[in-house]
Structure formats: structure tokens, C-alpha cells
């Protein structure tokens, strides 16, 4: 019988140690390989060189990271709104769900390589096509997670609420929605890892600025070190977003952290 205890701060850090070690050793092997083999930096630049490029080109990278971030955030906000609203509609109208769900599945089978140029063609080189592509790629995992989550509600809790005289809306807000939250966060974590990649891909196909453009230009001028520098920035961006969702999840799903769960 314990009060809900906040996790000790040291433990979270300690749990990160294996990850840090494995990543560090991967880079170390890479570095050593490049130095020993004498491979040309035009083929494979060493990590130290990539880091050096990041420092040298920090202004360029920063200026191009901002549009990518904008596209990611706007696209994600759109996708979150659409996924949530749709999930509510679908939950209240099972017939609509059966009618529309195949369409959403098909939307996920469209190869990004084919659809991205079309979207850029239709909506131009501005923010709009990137936002749409990010939304297209990220909304489905969240929608599926929410719909599945609603369905996973304990029927006994729903029966109880109805026996209390609860309306359909009350059952949704007090039972179905909270039940879906663990599922939602699982979907959110998948979505968030797609988001930055989708934005960069959309830029790659056509944009005025962005990490995608940096990558495109660097590739065209045979600068793999700069390509990788942009890749590192985009990975960091994804990691930050991932950590942010983990933090929100920790707060929203605090009840799962207590003694007895786990």
C-alpha cells in the first residue's frame, strides 16, 4: 500500500546507459573503419567529419531546419485533429466506419514517391503540400489506435455506466476515451517517427528551403558529409519529438505508473 510515487530521477538516466553505449560503439567502429581503410570521404565520411560539417554549416542547417519543423508541426497538428475528430465520428457511427475504413487503408498503400510529386504539383512549393503529406503519413496509425482503443473498453465498465443512466456521450467521455489513451500513445509514437521523414521527403520533391533541400543540394554536389549532417539534424528532431510524446504520455497515463501496474 503505497502512495503514487514519482519515479526516482536517477533510474531513468541509468536505463538510458545501454542505448548510449551501443550508439557510441557503432559510431566508434565507423570512425575506426574509415580511418584504417583510408576510404575517400566522398564515399563514406567519418562521424568526426560529419560533426565538423554540422559545426561549419550550423547557420545553413538551422535556417533549413526551421521550415522542416514548421511543416512537421503543422502537419502533425492537422493529422492529430483529423484523426481524433474522425475517430469520434467513426465510433458513434459504426456504419460510416465500415464504409470509410477501406479508404483510409488505401490511403496508406499509396507510395510516397508517387504521391509526393503530385501533391507538390497541385499545391506548389509552399508549406501546404508538406503539411498535407506529413498529415497523410501520420494520421492513420493514430486513427487506428484510437478506434481500436475505443473498442477495447471493458464492457463491464460500459454496462455499469449505462446502468447509472449515462448517455452515449457520457460513456464515450468517461469510459471509451480514457480506455483508448494507452493505445493512442502507441499510435502517436509510431506517427511521430514518420512525421519528420515525411516532411523532408516532401521538401526533397520540391521546396524552396528545408532539410530536404539541403540533402538534395549536397547530394548533387557530391557532399555525403553534408547529407549526413542534415540527416543527423533530422534524427535529432525526431528524437526530440519522440521524447516530448513520451513526456506527455507519462503525464496522461500516470495511473499506469503506480504500484500494481507494469
Amino acid at each position, binding site marked *: 500500500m503505497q502512495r503514487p510515487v514519482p519515479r526516482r530521477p536517477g533510474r531513468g538516466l541509468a536505463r538510458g546507459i545501454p542505448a548510449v553505449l551501443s550508439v557510441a560503439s557503432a559510431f566508434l567502429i565507423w570512425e575506426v573503419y574509415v580511418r584504417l581503410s583510408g576510404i575517400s570521404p566522398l564515399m563514406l565520411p567519418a562521424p568526426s567529419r560529419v560533426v565538423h560539417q554540422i559545426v561549419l554549416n550550423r547557420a545553413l542547417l538551422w535556417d533549413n531546419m526551421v521550415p522542416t519543423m514548421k511543416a512537421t508541426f503543422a502537419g502533425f497538428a492537422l493529422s492529430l485533429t483529423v484523426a481524433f475528430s474522425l475517430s469520434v465520428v467513426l465510433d458513434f457511427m459504426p456504419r460510416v466506419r465500415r464504409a470509410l475504413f477501406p479508404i483510409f487503408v488505401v490511403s496508406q498503400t499509396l507510395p510516397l514517391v508517387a504521391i509526393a510529386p503530385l501533391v507538390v504539383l497541385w499545391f506548389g512549393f509552399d508549406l501546404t503540400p508538406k503539411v498535407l503529406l506529413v498529415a497523410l503519413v501520420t494520421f492513420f496509425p493514430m486513427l487506428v489506435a484510437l478506434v481500436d482503443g475505443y473498442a477495447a473498453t471493458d464492457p463491464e465498465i460500459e454496462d*455499469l455506466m449505462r446502468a*447509472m443512466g*449515462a448517455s452515449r456521450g457520457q460513456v464515450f467521455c468517461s469510459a471509451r476515451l480514457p480506455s483508448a489513451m494507452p493505445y493512442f500513445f502507441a499510435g502517436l509514437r509510431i506517427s511521430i517517427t514518420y512525421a519528420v521523414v515525411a516532411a523532408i521527403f516532401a521538401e526533397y520533391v520540391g521546396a524552396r528551403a528545408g532539410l530536404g533541400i539541403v540533402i538534395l543540394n549536397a547530394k548533387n554536389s557530391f557532399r555525403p558529409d553534408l547529407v549526413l549532417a542534415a540527416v543527423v539534424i533530422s534524427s535529432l528532431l525526431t528524437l526530440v519529438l519522440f521524447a516530448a510524446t513520451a513526456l506527455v504520455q507519462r503525464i496522461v497515463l500516470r495511473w499506469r505508473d503506480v504500484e500494481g501496474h507494469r
Partner: protein
Amino acid sequence: MSLLQLQNVSVALGETRVLDDINLHVVEGEFVSILGPSGAGKSTIFRLLTAALPLQSGQITCAGEPLCARNGSFAFMPQRDALMPWRRIIDNLTLGLEVQGVTRKAARAQVLPLLADFGLEGFEQHYPAQLSGGMRQRAALLRTVVQGRPVQLLDEPFGALDALTRTQMQTWFEARWQTARWTSVLVTHDVREAVALSDRIYVLSRRPARVIAEITVPIPRPRLGRPPCAAAHAIEARLLETLLHQTGETP
């Protein structure tokens, strides 16, 4: 006049006939048990009363009026406690009042004074997962009681507990019931429990369930927490006899 009455109620779920011509009634202030073997259809009766299942044939009246879905006559305690794991105990307890439209503050004010009596004082900020089985059951019971409905439907409230905790809870519950005198319908397959708590007991057959006996328990309360009397033993024996020597489909 009876507060609750079931007349000729039959239910079939798919191909399975579950309830077969059930007749029973509950008078105000009375404690009635429905005793029956596992899988007989006891919970099904409650599902009818809480409108989780539509009435197929027969009649259910509550205070003389036909039962309709949302007339707010019953407070229901499901077989498993059905506490919401994401709500703290206090918020689980106020759920029924919240559904009725009572503000959170008023609901809490109503619940807080009852915590001590239900052995939950100091645990209102805990999550259900942090409570023992007995405490969860008491929380589920309190959540039922605070709804202030005329009749309480208790579906095996002590069924999931270990023998020792169950006996403690039954003794505690008897004391609570004696002061409050809720009109209660208890579903159970525990003969001892039925005899200890009830004014009257309906015995159901195996599926399809019919009422095969109606037994009055004229033993003065409190019955628990003291050596059981001969009359209780006699009734228990008779109930067991009825349950064991019934006809009907085997489950």
C-alpha cells in the same frame, strides 16, 4: 406492495434459453438473494434490470410502474468491481453522481463522509490498482450506495475474495446493512452467504433457470460474527439439498 416484481420473465440468448419463466418480487427494505449454480443466468437477471439486455417476454415492474431503461431505480454493482483504473478512488466513487449531473465538488462532499465507514479513509487519492481486493470491493460497494437509488443490485460482491477477507466483508456488510436497510438484491452461489444476509432467498435451477424454491430466513440479526445457530444450519442444508437434487440441463 413490492418495490420490484418480475413476472413470467424468459430470456433466450441466441439458441440458448437462459431464463425460463422467472417470477420474483422484492419488498421495500428487504434483502433478497438469488441463489443459483454457476452459469444459471443470475447475472442475466441483472442485465435485464439495468437494461443492458432488452426484455424479451414477461413483465418487470418497479414500484408498480413498468421498467423503462433510464428510470433510475437501481444502483448496480457488477460481478467484477469495474473500477476505472485511470480514475483515483475518489473519482471512481463519484462516478454515479457525476453521471446524474451532480457537480464534482458536491459529489465529493457527499462521498467523503462515508469513506471511514467503508474503510477507505486515506485512500481516496489512490488508484484502484493500489488497493487490496477487499478494499476494491468496498469501493465498488460505496460507489453503488452513494447513487441513492431505491434498490441495489449486487452481483456476487464477495465472490472474488479469499475466504478470510470474504467473511470479514460479509460481517462488515451485515452491520452496514442493518443500520442503512437498503433494499437489496444479492446474486450469489454461496449458500452460507445467502443465509447469513437474506430475508428471503430464491433458488434458481441450472440453465434454463427457473425458480425452484423460495425460502424465508426468519433468523434474527446480526447473524455473523457469532456461532451459527441451528436454524441457519437447517436452512443451509435445505438449500444445498435443493441445489444438488435439481433437474435440468447439465452445464
